[in-house]
């Protein structure tokens, strides 16, 4: 049960941090500045181009020296990993909002940041919700990799219990069911949320 809570904690915190960082890089990518575009492109290319487990170990060996717990190493590793994908989700959803929306805001005297905040982003978030939910599910399952840096989350607990009792298959099955139930519950939640905010769509 503690493993379950830790899994949820790692997932939620890493997706939240990933969302904030991802939004930042989405703006970098959409910016007119070549330097910011370049920074975002390199960042996304490096993160998407390397395996998550490598990134987690990287954080583990790099940060645990500084006295940072394996929980935070795993969470930060996952957060940055998520952020690259979330950056692309936000970039896509912001670009998918008709240019006329920004123009309409601007023609009413709104500054670009204000029109972005009041007009474009609320619509973009709405559109980003399904892929964000998807990313959350991926993050939830990816959090099992934290087991490799001895974070006692769900998967780690299961394998430890398994090897202690020599019933590996049973525990693997149990942990698989745990993940499945979590994912199904979360899918239900996202669907509910989508239904709720579908009200004012085009």
């Amino acid at each position: 049960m503690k493993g379950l809570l830790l899994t949820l904690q790692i997932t939620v915190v890493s997706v939240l941090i990933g969302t904030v960082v991802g939004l930042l890089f989405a703006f970098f990518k959409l910016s007119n500045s070549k330097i910011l575009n370049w920074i975002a492109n390199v960042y996304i290319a490096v993160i998407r181009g390397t395996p998550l487990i490598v990134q987690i170990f990287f954080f583990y060996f790099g940060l645990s020296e500084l006295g940072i717990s394996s929980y935070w190493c795993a969470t930060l590793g996952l957060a940055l990993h998520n952020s690259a994908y979330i950056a692309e989700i936000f970039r896509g959803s912001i670009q998918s909002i008709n240019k006329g929306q920004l123009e309409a805001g601007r023609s009413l005297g709104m500054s670009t940041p204000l029109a972005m905040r009041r007009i474009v982003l609320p619509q973009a978030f709405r559109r980003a919700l399904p892929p964000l939910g998807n990313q959350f599910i991926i993050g939830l399952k990816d959090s099992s990799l934290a087991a490799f840096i001895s974070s006692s989350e769900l998967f780690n607990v299961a394998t430890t219990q398994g090897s202690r009792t020599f019933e590996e298959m049973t525990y693997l099955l149990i942990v698989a069911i745990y993940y499945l139930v979590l994912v199904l519950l979360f899918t239900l939640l996202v669907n509910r949320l989508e239904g709720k905010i579908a009200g004012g769509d085009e």
Partner: protein
Amino acid sequence: MEQRKVMIKVNNLNKSFGDLHVLKDVDIEVHEQDVVVLIGASGSGKSTLLRCLNYLEYKESGSITIDGKVIEPDQTDLNKVRQEVGMVFQHFNLFPHKTVLENVIEAPVMVKKIPKDKAVEEGRALLKKVGLADKEDVYPSKLSGGQKQRVAIARSLAMKPKIMLFDEPTSALDPELVGEVLSTMKDLAREGMTMLVVTHEMGFAREAADTVVYMHDGKIVEKGTPSDIFSQPKNQRTKDFLGTIL
């Protein structure tokens, strides 16, 4: 005609998109309370001219003076200019995540910082004026095209602009919905709003315009009163154009 204030004055305006020279040395003058209708084939630069006036597109050369003030992007607060120059778009561009009333009060509250209850009161009055008082809590997706455009007009008017620009306001509408939008625009013209309208509705031009301007290939070919332009166009191109559409 008595001397009225010049609200829009454009001199030698040029604009290109890449190699395409869209506006060529355009001069135009719109007096206060005048309704000027721009006509011409697609691609003749009418919409671009309109969009240059509130700097949704940046001019390349030439000068734009609005209400006596020369507008230069690096010296003028364009957001201030845009508050005074309302714009109505072909595709309405209502904010789909906001109700009709929220669409109308958004800019007054967020830009002009008008207290919300006052903005709501004024917003309701505007919706009543465009005949949509009963729709204030509805989302735009539930409205017909004609209703959407009338909301868009109310939304623009909420900023109390001195000039209204209309960019083909009825071109995206089903034929039976064009009338309601045009009649809203005629009401506005009667109240003395200064209007610059790009349209293919020659009936509107004939009835409501003080001046009709015919554009071809980025240039102003001919301007005059509706009766001059429609009954005795001087330029051969104007004749040809009117021949194809009337």
